[in-house]
């Protein structure tokens, strides 16, 4: 019977990293036997909508974790191998989620730098001879609340735009000759690729 031949052929496949790649291999193996084997037939065999399967195979969406074991069974993939795919899938999902969180946070930080003038105002005051290492003084000079100053200070420290060397020695790290609204915006924008790299 044809299906048995398939099964024997599939047993020879090596373990690949993701279940998506495994699905790819399965489809190719079937096509090697029957050139006219369609994605629709493959999808029907798995019991999934063919458009969904197509997106999965093109990495446009991930294999639903809960489908890995039933699909593996359908494809006669040994349960031990299916367990590996399921574990890999779970870890990948967790990592993708963590990375997304990190990126979301980073984007919010960068947008805050670009849209809230308090950051540049602080850096300007740090350079001024009258500077005092005092959030209340900064707040008064800038005309914002102390909390706004402190949130901005934390952000400038996190992003390395400000360094506090000693109690009264604050150093701004942009290296710009003049911190105008325009030069600051350009500085932040140009730094985007390198700071994004640091979030890895």
């Amino acid at each position, binding site marked *: 019977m044809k299906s048995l031949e398939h099964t024997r052929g599939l047993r020879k496949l090596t373990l690949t990293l993701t279940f998506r790649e495994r699905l790819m291999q399965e489809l190719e193996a079937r096509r090697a036997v029957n050139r006219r084997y369609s994605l629709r037939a493959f999808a029907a065999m798995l019991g999934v909508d063919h458009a969904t399967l197509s997106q999965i195979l093109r990495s446009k969406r991930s294999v639903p974790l809960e489908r890995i074991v039933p699909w593996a069974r359908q494809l006669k993939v040994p349960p031990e191998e299916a367990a590996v795919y399921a574990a890999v899938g779970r870890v990948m999902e967790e990592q993708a989620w963590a990375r997304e969180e990190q990126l979301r946070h980073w984007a919010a930080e960068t947008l805050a730098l670009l849209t809230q003038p308090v950051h540049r105002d602080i850096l300007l005051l740090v350079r001024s001879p009258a500077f005092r290492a005092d959030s209340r003084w900064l707040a008064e000079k800038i005309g914002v609340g*102390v909390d706004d100053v402190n949130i901005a200070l934390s952000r400038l420290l996190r992003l390395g735009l400000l360094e506090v060397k000693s109690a009264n020695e604050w150093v701004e790290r942009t290296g710009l000759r003049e911190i105008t609204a325009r030069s600051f915006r350009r500085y932040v924008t140009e730094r985007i690729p390198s700071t994004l790299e640091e979030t890895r």
Partner: protein
Amino acid sequence: MMGNPVTHFQILSKRPDDSAAFYSALFDWRINADNAMGYRRIETGSGEGIQGGIWPAPAQAPNFVQLFVSVADVNAAVEKAQRLGGRVLIPPTVLPEGDEMAVLHDPQGMSFAVWRNGKPG
């Protein structure tokens, strides 16, 4: 100094005034922000346990609590934390009154601070 005790807790709040009002009403804690950073120090009114503070959190951050661990050398603690898989969030920073601190992420992504008291003794 012996050991590395937890000496301070810090509430990061998107609405620091509201947090201050809630905890002072609940526990009779006194909030004192009369210092250069405008830092809301929490005085629990007890010699037991540790004292704390409230720091404003940006809008996108969650509200959470950080523990401050006292160390003899902030730079050394940061380097050691990095070797162990921690990440620096705020590098060593000297506060206006001479205290030094750094904020780190542990390998699980939880943030905490290391702290060195600037006042002698």
